[in-house]
């Protein structure tokens, strides 16, 4: 699974990155990628404010960090069958 965090380098973006790295220790298949929030990918995802979080093509958060619990729940519900 690929988690794309769109960051503006501010504290809320950093918080989202830290949360994801923590979640990734539980889910080694989670690939965390950080991109600037004004990149083309961010524009494609409609991310107007940082941080933005997109996991496997689903936009999960815009403008604030999503909690570890919510991310975990999403991953557990959306993990490919063979990883479950």
């Amino acid at each position, binding site marked *: 699974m690929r988690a794309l965090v769109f960051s503006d380098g501010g504290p809320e973006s950093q918080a989202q990155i830290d949360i994801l790295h923590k979640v990734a220790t539980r889910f080694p298949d989670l690939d965390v990628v950080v991109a600037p929030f004004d990149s083309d990918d961010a524009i494609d995802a409609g991310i107007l404010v940082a941080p933005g979080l997109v996991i496997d093509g*689903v936009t999960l958060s815009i*403008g604030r960090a999503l909690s570890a619990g919510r991310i975990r*729940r999403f991953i557990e519900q959306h993990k490919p069958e063979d990883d479950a």
Partner: protein
Amino acid sequence: MSEIVYLDHAATTPVDPAVRDAMLPYLGELFANPSSIHAAGRTVRQAVSRARSHVAELIAAPPESVVFTGGGTESDVTALLGAAFARERVGERGHIVTSAFEHPAVLECCRFLETRGFRVTYVRPEANVVLSADAVAEAMQPDTFLVSIMMVNNETGTLQPIRSIAAAAHERGALMHTDAVQALGKTEVDVEDLGVDLLSGSAHKLYGPKGVGVLYVRPGVDLVPIAPGGGQERKRRGGTENVPGIIGFGEAARLARVHFHERQAHAQRLRQELMRLCTEVRSVRLNGDAEQAVPHIANFCLVYVDALLLVSNLSRRGIFISVGSACASGKLEPSYVLKSAGMSDFASFTSARFSTGKDNTVEQVSRVVDEVGELAEFLRQIRTPAEIGQCDENCPCLWEEGVA
């Protein structure tokens, strides 16, 4: 990606192929300046004049009262600043009445005029985003010289009681301007019947090109031109005309008139389908007014669904809608339109606008309703009510607890 469904026609519409075809010769061989006195210039001048007649017919105005501008914003600015500068010219200032939910084109002009010593009252609408004509009349003061109220609100589609407001303005000797950018081609617009002195429109909202607009100026109204330049447009707006744009606007206006009833009926059918959101998707309600509205714009509050996430995820599925909340200095601001009607920030952050067009099909709208329903359920899992907030007790959309 699956088929694109564009439901953002209140933002802009695609240029009709017939409009594009009408414009093309004016980007080619018919390039002359309409002010030139040679034959090539005269040909173009005649075409501009035909386009003027088409736009005039759309608003039931005489062609000589139609001023072409660089878009809806410029039309609003020309009307408001022009009327205010005419006051300044005779050494006076005075008072303006407008609404709190006007387009920024009007609001920013008003704020600018406040810095020059004018006074402005911003009247708030009722909870259904419709102004009370009485409230507007009550806001008028002895030196009110201008009332500017939009005909159709761009975020909710609500129709404002322009006729009654214009009558009240005239009773007190004030000019009446209406921003009809979202109304042209969508509802009957007749400047005589409405009783307005100034009316703004924009081509790109009715399948015409961007960057061309219209300002209707009732004969005899004193406006100081903002860009006098070479005296074009009967000295109302200087500058060589945007000929291809004007020709495109003329054709778009002609088509809007010819197909008016058919497009209206189609928009009604699409709205009916869209309204399934309120009955088939849990906890969705219409913002604004179900009756007093144009059929092609509908704004819904989807309780506990973060509307930005909805827009983003729909966009990934090829469905394009919009939200009224805006990004300002890296922070998300609630929609000032919904706020002006007393809605809470939370109602605003969970509201989205769907605006249909002539080329949308019932099947497309049906698919949108289904996908919104599915995404709404998913997104309600992503944010808890505690995270997204609650409406305060005055919010007209107050939801029962425990929806999510």
